[in-house]
């Protein structure tokens, strides 16, 4: 599903040391992976490689059978639009769009996700509303102002946007760091449920080790790189 072998990455060609150095990592389809490590260990860098924003300096990165470093920038953008749902730490929403519009935005740049979304509903808005309800956002908030939502509610909208059109991989970059403990657990359970429903692989990144027991697999990025 996701395979990294001998991956190294430098921000600048002349930088002395690698920002990231991963000998081997493989994530299987449908796995819920907890990726953790302290700040500065290369989590964000790894995510930018997985999302196809950056290309590894050396090594091989294969996602869904495609060698990502072989693709052009534009192809990687299209690949991300088709296959990856992304949840940010916070401030996930475009403030000028309603929650529904924010969710629909998730498949605006990909025809395959649009097609997938329409398999389950007659319109994109209907599918967005369905996902928002499943993630526990009340119907009366669906057309409210995105900026008026609480952070917890905003993260649910962000999750719905990541899941719409059932992308193969969901990447969540510390999506719960702004939530309190109760909400955190609840939100992660909702993520699991949706990931199961859409049969997506979930890569969850956090520096908070207390979440580790919830996941069936956890990877420490520091030890992963130490193996070199």
């Amino acid at each position, binding site marked *: 599903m996701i395979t990294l072998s001998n991956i190294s990455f430098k921000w600048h060609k002349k930088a002395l040391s690698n920002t990231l150095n991963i000998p081997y990592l493989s994530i299987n389809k449908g796995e819920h992976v907890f990726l953790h490590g302290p700040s500065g260990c290369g989590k964000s860098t790894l995510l930018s490689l997985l999302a196809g*924003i950056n290309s590894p300096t050396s090594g091989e990165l294969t996602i869904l059978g495609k060698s990502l470093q072989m693709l052009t920038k534009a192809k990687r953008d299209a690949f991300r*639009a088709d296959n990856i749902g*992304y949840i*940010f730490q916070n401030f996930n929403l475009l403030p000028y769009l309603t929650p529904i519009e924010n969710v629909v935005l998730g498949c605006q740049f990909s025809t395959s996700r649009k097609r997938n979304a329409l398999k389950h509903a007659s319109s994109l808005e209907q599918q967005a509303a369905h996902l928002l309800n499943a993630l526990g956002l009340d119907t009366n908030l669906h057309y409210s102002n995105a900026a008026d939502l609480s952070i917890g509610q905003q993260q649910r909208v962000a999750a719905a946007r990541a899941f719409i059109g059932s992308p193969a991989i969901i990447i969540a970059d510390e999506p719960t760091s702004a939530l309190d403990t109760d909400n955190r657990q609840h939100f992660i359970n909702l993520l699991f449920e949706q990931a199961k429903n859409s049969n997506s692989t979930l890569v969850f990144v956090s520096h908070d080790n207390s979440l580790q027991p919830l996941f069936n697999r956890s990877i420490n990025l520091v030890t992963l790189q130490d193996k070199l």
Partner: protein
Amino acid sequence: MILAKLAFKSLLNRRASVCLTLLTIAISVMLLLSIERIRLDAKSSFSNTISGTDLIVGARTGDIQLLLSSVFRIGHANNGISWESYNYIKNQRGVKWTIPISLGDSHKGNAVLGTSPDYFTYYRYAKKQNLRFVAGQAFKHINDVVLGNEVATKLGYKLGDSIVISHGMGNTSFHHHKDNPFTVVGILAPTGTPVDKTLHIPLGAIDLIHASHSRHASSAHDEHDEHDEHDEHDEHDEHDEHDEHDEHDEHDEHDEHDEQNNALIGQPKQITAFLMGFNSPLYTLQMRRNINQYKPEALLAIMPAVTLKELWEMLTIVEKVLLLFSAVVVLISLLGMLTTLLANLNQRRRELAILRSVGAKPWHIFTLMSIESLFITLLGCIVGCIWFYVLMLTSATYLQTHAGISINITSLSYYELTLIAIIMGSGFIIGLIPATRAYFYSLTDGMSIKV
């Protein structure tokens, strides 16, 4: 499509700053269009002042000075032309018509023009249009006056009213010719030229009001020998109840008409200037040379079309400065848009990252930002055009009455559309600056949120 929708919603979200930007662009567009329209219409009003006249002849002075005093009633002609010279030139071969004019008196700040009845037949303005009467007719008696349209409307005169003429120009003239009140017999249709602000009286009346206190000093004239070519006036064949003509029963109708004209023209010592038309334009240059070399008196003949053009060229510096100012205003408004877009851009880096995360390419980001600036400029231009028309509609009458500029409320000309296209183009190019920055932000930031 999705980008246009995003751009629109994003602008709507920032409507306060967007509205201000839009406002400045709209105002600058309105200003530019108005200045250009007024400039062009002023130019055409200006060159429409007189037409169909081949030569204007006056005492020797500057070309432009003669034009200003004879046509625009601006300034004074210090010297006149002697009546003998006028009669000599008038009888040259090829001369179709002449209109003698005598200026120098005023009525409540409006110029008083002494002339012959030919004025109403041969004077042309704009595209060779004749003067028309909205009420009454040309003067037939020595104490008749024909008013320009603006004089009549502004001072509220109707047919039959009595008017007193002052000596000299201006409102504050103390010397009123109270002995000789004039009766309004005709009101001309508006022309958009100085004719509107002029009172027309018979040439003979000018001397009369100055020369003597006797109203009937000019009632008897002995020599009519030089008035042998008024055959064009055959239509004035019913003058039966004119009291001055009671003692001329022995004349036939044609003679009676001549007699009446003679009474109206009188025997002035000199006139200010006269207008001439020829049977063929070929005579113009020859006649002009002859007049300029006329021995007995220092005379000057000008071709009004040529001198109008010279005069307008003197004014081009003013119009260029106006154009420059409005162009600078447009530039400032576009720079204002640039400032606003750039200032917002930093706050919007998060927005760009979100768009990137859902698969937007940097190229999409660039397009999105360009659409925004294009949309602001487009809307600014549209609003500016609407305001321009509102302004023109509301100020057309004011400009007509106060500046003599007749504004044409027409659709946008090719020239004006070009101006708008230039503004749109500059707006688009200026909008490329924030778009390019956003493009590079989205490349370097990727999906890491930097704010």
